[in-house]
């Protein structure tokens, strides 16, 4: 069952890559990023973590892997981020929110909707944190290594 799900995550990452037309040679790296991120999320939830924590940790992993791959392969980091985080998107929660709202269960709907928004926010903030760390490292290296190049 777990193998089947890992295959599904691989399929999602590669398909998102095809849909957003990333260079074909990078589809392999993209699928690795997707699978690692999803496994982190799956295992965090299995060990009793909340969905928000799981998605946060997984999306930090996505950001870190994407920035490292971008440095090694000299490609924009966006290419690796987008297919990496799509399998983490809380589609199920969003659907349940809509269902509650339509059936008139507004309190359940708002509660589930809040959870959906926070989970989405955790994904966004995970990418934010990892990208910020890499930008800080880059700026620090620039400051310390070059005197003549200056800023712009």
């Amino acid at each position, binding site marked *: 069952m777990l193998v089947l799900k890992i295959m599904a995550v691989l399929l999602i990452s590669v398909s998102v890559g095809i849909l957003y037309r990333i*260079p074909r040679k990078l589809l392999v790296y993209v699928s690795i990023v997707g699978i690692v991120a999803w496994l982190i999320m799956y295992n965090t939830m299995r060990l009793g973590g909340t969905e928000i924590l799981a998605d946060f940790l997984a999306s930090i992993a996505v950001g870190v892997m994407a920035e490292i791959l971008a440095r090694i392969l000299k490609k924009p980091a966006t290419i690796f981020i987008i297919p990496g985080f799509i399998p983490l*998107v809380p589609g199920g929660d969003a659907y349940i929110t809509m269902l509650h709202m339509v059936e008139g269960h507004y309190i359940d709907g708002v509660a589930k909707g809040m959870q959906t928004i926070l989970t989405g926010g955790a994904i*966004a903030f995970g990418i934010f944190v990892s990208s910020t760390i890499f930008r800080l490292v880059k700026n620090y290296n620039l400051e310390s290594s070059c005197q003549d190049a200056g800023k712009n």
Partner: protein
Amino acid sequence: MAISLEQMVSLAGIAGEVMLKNGAETYRIEETMDHMAKACGASAVESFVIPTGVFLTVTDGDGRSLTVMRRVHQRTINLDRISKVNELSRRLVDQRLEYENAKVILQGISKERTGFSWLPSMLASGAIGGATAVLQDAVFFEIVAAFVAAMLVRYIAHIVSKLRGVQFTFEFLGGMVVALCGVLLHSLWPYLRPDAVIIGGIMPLVPGVAITNAIRDVIAGDLLSGLSRGLEAALTSVAVAMGVVIILALRL
């Protein structure tokens, strides 16, 4: 070999326009235009990019300066082109490429049909839907239905992309069609649940590029672009949700 001011502006302007049209981050576009113009011999470059336009001022060695503005109406997502323009600018900066060749290559990039054609993207969209249904522990026929629903979403995108200047219509219609697929499946075969079909079907509609670019623009300090892209992502999600909700509400 002196490159004239007009040529510098034109080269950097086209590069910026191609990158913006295909969904690059704001700071990447500005840096690429700066690097390209300076590699051609400009003494100072100022660039300003917002999601709907590119502004560029280049000053040459004699102190003359020229400003161009390029308005971008139609935006698509093609990360392959961004990566190619990126590569081109690196080669230009490293003096591994002449100006004339760069211009020809750039025009080639903006015209060529890169990546995958619409049938593979339909299959890819379907695969996203089917695989998401697998993650939701769906049974076999629900997975097949999610595959078909997600493929239909892509087909709608193919049709709607021909009608220019309408935003969020594709997402709204996509949400409606996906919900319709799920509800129809459930009413034809009541033992199949619509949940996995709808969840799988709306997955290709997630605004991945808008979300990522919004975050990266905000980090880079381009607050204007970051906010407008964040709003784009939020409105897209609302459009999808409204499409689904309207169909679900009709059933009840």
